[in-house]
């Protein structure tokens, strides 16, 4: 066999025929367009259908404004809490051996496995008027279900795996050597965390926080069950979208929805940027030793 034919053969062996490539690519592109790009375009085009003026008027509506505020409040409470929990859980799981570790890991995944509606229902059964803790709560004049605390609780439950899962994988990949080095050099636990662990995990942490935030703001099912849909009081952005839509107020509905779509786009952008950074960081920390030319 000459060199030439062997070259052609390897080329044939590693690249699919032209028609297969075109077919597979067009299927992927068509799918993407149909399920992602078209809906996104529709959201914005419907929102701006009657002009920019109507768009901003819809946003200034007191109920819409209340929904935006409630969504922000929920996110401001839930995201830091879950970030804190995520860091603690990831630290424990990636750095220590203990009994029940696998159970803890599966428990962290539980909110992904349970339907959000069920999650909401559990809180109703627990804190609702006829719930387990209902009588005690009403005796002490505390309202959780059909109020902000219920929404926060439901959102926290649904979003708590995001930071933890992200960081567990990240910290396991990085290993504990830098932390051990810091301890041997005389650093206290807190110094190790602040000066070594946190700088090392910051991009992974941010990544988890961004995803957690997107989900916290966009959560529908669990919040819908516990909120009671009280306009101006317990409606978050997704619930407000549904109400407006059911009232055939399409422009207002899509206007509010466009906020979430915009959030999604921003989230994607930041996510992309962070992925780039963490990839670089992992490459650096795991870089095999190069030939020590100057050593």
């Amino acid at each position, binding site marked *: 066999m000459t060199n030439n034919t062997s070259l052609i053969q390897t080329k044939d062996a590693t690249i699919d025929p032209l028609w297969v490539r075109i077919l597979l690519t067009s299927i992927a592109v068509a799918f993407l367009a149909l399920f992602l790009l078209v809906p996104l375009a529709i959201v914005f085009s419907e929102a701006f259908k009657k002009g920019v003026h109507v768009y901003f008027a819809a946003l200034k509506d007191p109920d819409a404004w209340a929904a935006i505020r409630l969504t922000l409040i929920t996110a401001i409470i839930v995201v830091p809490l879950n970030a804190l929990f995520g860091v603690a859980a990831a630290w424990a799981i990636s750095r220590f051996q203990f009994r029940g570790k696998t159970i803890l890991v599966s428990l962290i995944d539980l909110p992904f496995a349970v339907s959000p509606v069920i999650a909401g229902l559990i809180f109703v059964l627990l804190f609702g008027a006829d719930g387990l803790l209902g009588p005690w709560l009403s005796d002490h004049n505390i309202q959780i279900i059909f109020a902000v605390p219920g929404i926060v609780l439901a959102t926290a439950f649904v979003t708590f795996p995001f930071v933890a899962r992200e960081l567990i994988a990240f910290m396991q990949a990085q290993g504990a*050597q*830098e932390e*051990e*080095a*810091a*301890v*041997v*050099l*005389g*650093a*206290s636990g807190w*110094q190790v965390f602040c*000066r*070594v662990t946190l*700088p*090392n995990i910051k991009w992974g942490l941010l990544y988890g926080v961004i995803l957690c935030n997107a989900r916290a703001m966009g959560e529908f099912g669990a919040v819908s069950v516990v909120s009671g849909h009280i306009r101006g009081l317990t409606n978050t952005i997704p619930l407000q979208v549904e109400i407006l839509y059911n009232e055939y107020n399409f422009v207002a509905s899509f206007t509010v929805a466009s906020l979430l779509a915009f959030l999604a786009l921003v989230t994607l952008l930041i996510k992309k940027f962070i992925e780039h950074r963490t990839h670089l*960081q992992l490459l*650096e*920390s795991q*870089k*095999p*030793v*190069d*030939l*020590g*030319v*100057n*050593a």
Partner: protein
Amino acid sequence: MKIEAHGITKKFGNFTALDKVDLQVPPGKLVALLGPSGSGKTTLLRVIAGLESADQGEVLYGEDNVTGLSAKERNVGFVFQHYALFSHMTIFENIAFGLRVRKWKNNAVRDRVRELLKLIQLESLEKRYPAQLSGGQRQRVALARSLAPQPKVLLLDEPFGALDAKVRQELRRWLRRLHDEIHMTSVFVTHDQEEAFEVADLVVVMNQGKIEQIGSPDAIFAHPANAFVMGFLGNVNVFHGRVQNGRAEVGGFEVPFPEHPHDEPQQATAYVRPHELDVDRVSHGPESLPARVLRIARSGPLVKLSLMAFDEQIPLEVELDHQRDHHLELKVGDEVFVYPHQVRIFVENEPRQ
């Protein structure tokens, strides 16, 4: 300051990493823990450092019992195989870390870091990040970082394991010179016998969680305590056979073995290093073995021969100096006689192997 470990036992689940290990490191010496992977050498080092807690046993630094102290409180310098430099800090800040957590004043930190940068000859790189350094440079920074807080002992875990051969050699000579300058009690882990023998004052050979032999490199090489040590220290030809009436018959040749003058035969294994075998054109009687030359490699400082013994079909490795090889005019396929200068025989019913 001397380091002592008494009766150290450490288990990971069902696996016994260390089994009642006793070790004494004399003050100011450089000691190598040498063994195959899984022999417990790294675990022993980590127990000495306080990074791992032993199930049983005590660790003493000088007269102080440090068993209950954490790694943070033991004030040891520890160098990791993969450097474990802080990737988000400059070289300067890496070396300064141990001083900053001890709340040294800025001026003192700067002076000490500069002093160490000079010692590792990387003064110009203080503003770089670890990722911008070569492997050898990184390991020197790791060493400087561990020395910065003036530790009482220096512990190194396979310090050159991740480097390529040439850098490795330079760095271990440098470490030896450094040790001769600062005379700090040091222990390093390695699986490379050449490294251990070249650098250390004292070599501790470990296997399966136990210490097989402790001694100077020369003593261990000349008088291996048992078959494991013999086999672990580089290339060796192994012959099986038996001892009887003050003679040993192993692998087709016969040598005197006065240690076993008895009638009843006993299984034995003979170990001969490649350079302890010689080759001749004529037979030396029962002490020599006829063999055929399979391969000749003349590229190194010694000529390496691969041969096959006729009778027993045993592969043999022999190392000759170039003069001897030239004199014999060996070619592949030649039929020659192999005879040993020195044979070490271990009778099989020894406690280990």
